[in-house]
């Protein structure tokens, strides 16, 4: 004889089952540690921190064709320059915990294939960017107090200044 299910019992079971993942998620919430930002040589990045963090991929992607095809190499956005400053000499991209790029890419589940061809370690390269003379920064600190990029561009006449009110 089939045993009838009591509706109350079924409901409580579903409640418990539903609450379990919620409890699990709540327990995990906010506890994911981002990978530690590895220290770079030099005292300043080539772009403000928020720009370079968000758009380094775009910069490298846009300018690589100019560099390869038209030989218009921008030492400040050079791939080799990034590696020279940021990656430790003994780092390997196959061991993400040692490698500046790979640690963050792994954390963010980004898979780029730069290092299938490009050297993943610094080299004695001549393509140094103009801001950092590649001495190890004595009191290294990221400059987070940067000014607006547009303001800087206007300052050096790369962007038109705000229009003066017409008489």
């Amino acid at each position, binding site marked *: 004889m089939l045993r009838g299910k009591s509706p109350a019992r079924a409901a409580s079971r579903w409640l418990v089952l539903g609450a379990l993942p919620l409890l699990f998620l709540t327990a995990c919430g906010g506890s994911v540690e981002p990978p530690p930002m590895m220290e770079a040589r030099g005292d300043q990045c080539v772009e403000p921190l928020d720009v370079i963090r968000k758009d380094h991929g775009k910069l490298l992607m846009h300018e690589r064709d*100019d560099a390869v095809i*038209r*030989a218009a190499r921008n030492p400040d*956005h050079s791939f080799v320059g990034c590696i020279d400053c940021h990656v430790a000499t003994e780092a390997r991209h196959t061991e993400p915990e040692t490698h500046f790029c790979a640690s963050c890419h792994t954390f963010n589940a980004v898979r780029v294939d730069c290092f299938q061809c490009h050297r993943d370690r610094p080299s004695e390269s*001549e*393509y140094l960017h*103009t*801001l950092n003379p590649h001495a190890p920064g004595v009191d290294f600190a990221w400059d987070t107090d940067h000014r607006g990029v547009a303001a800087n561009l206007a*300052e*050096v006449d790369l962007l038109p200044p705000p229009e003066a009110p017409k008489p």
Partner: protein
Amino acid sequence: MSQKTSAPLSRRQFITGAAAAVASVTVAPGVFLMRPAEAGTAEGVRWGLLIDSNRCGDCNACVTACHEENGVRGMDRPRTDAQWIRKVELRDPETGYSHSLPVMCQHCEHPPCEDVCPTGASFRRADGIVLVNKHTCIGCRYCMMACPYKARSFIHETLTDQAAHAPRGKGTVESCTLCVHRIDRGERTTACVEACHEQGNGAMIFGDLNDPDSAISRELAEHGGTAIRADLGLNPGVRYQGI
């Protein structure tokens, strides 16, 4: 304090100092002001090599230097190992006279590799250097079939420890770059030519074929030179004497 004052200065340094080659300027996060980058290739130049096979002995200095410079290492598998430059032995069966000469990418004016490339990865730079853009190379190897000089190699295996200036990776085709990294930083010689003068017999000259006053042009005007398979009409940038 010092950081606050130095940051705008450095920004200006960055923008003015490196602006010559800047392709894009970040206006705001995610917004780029794209400007056509000024080409870094020298105007009206065509780089080339002149190789005197009468002087070229049986040394291997150019091959060693090239592969050392560009991080090309063999895997003891001669059939598939990459080869950017190789020594070719010529022997006249009638007289028995034999001599050897280095053969590398001939940097044609009308490169067949460029013609057949389905992705445009094989291309000729404005200064005459024929290169593979490995960002777009799909490894189909049509160019290897098309090249009459057998100058290109395919990378069959995963590589590590590449030279920083010569990215190389599995699944792409590669060949002599005429030491493009040296040319782009203003040097006017290649690894093979340098080695030939230092350790070899001084059989190679690098220079601008379009400049009538360059050493290579003067030598060509005085003693002439031929291209390998000149009948193909590819007008290679690498010329030979004594073949």
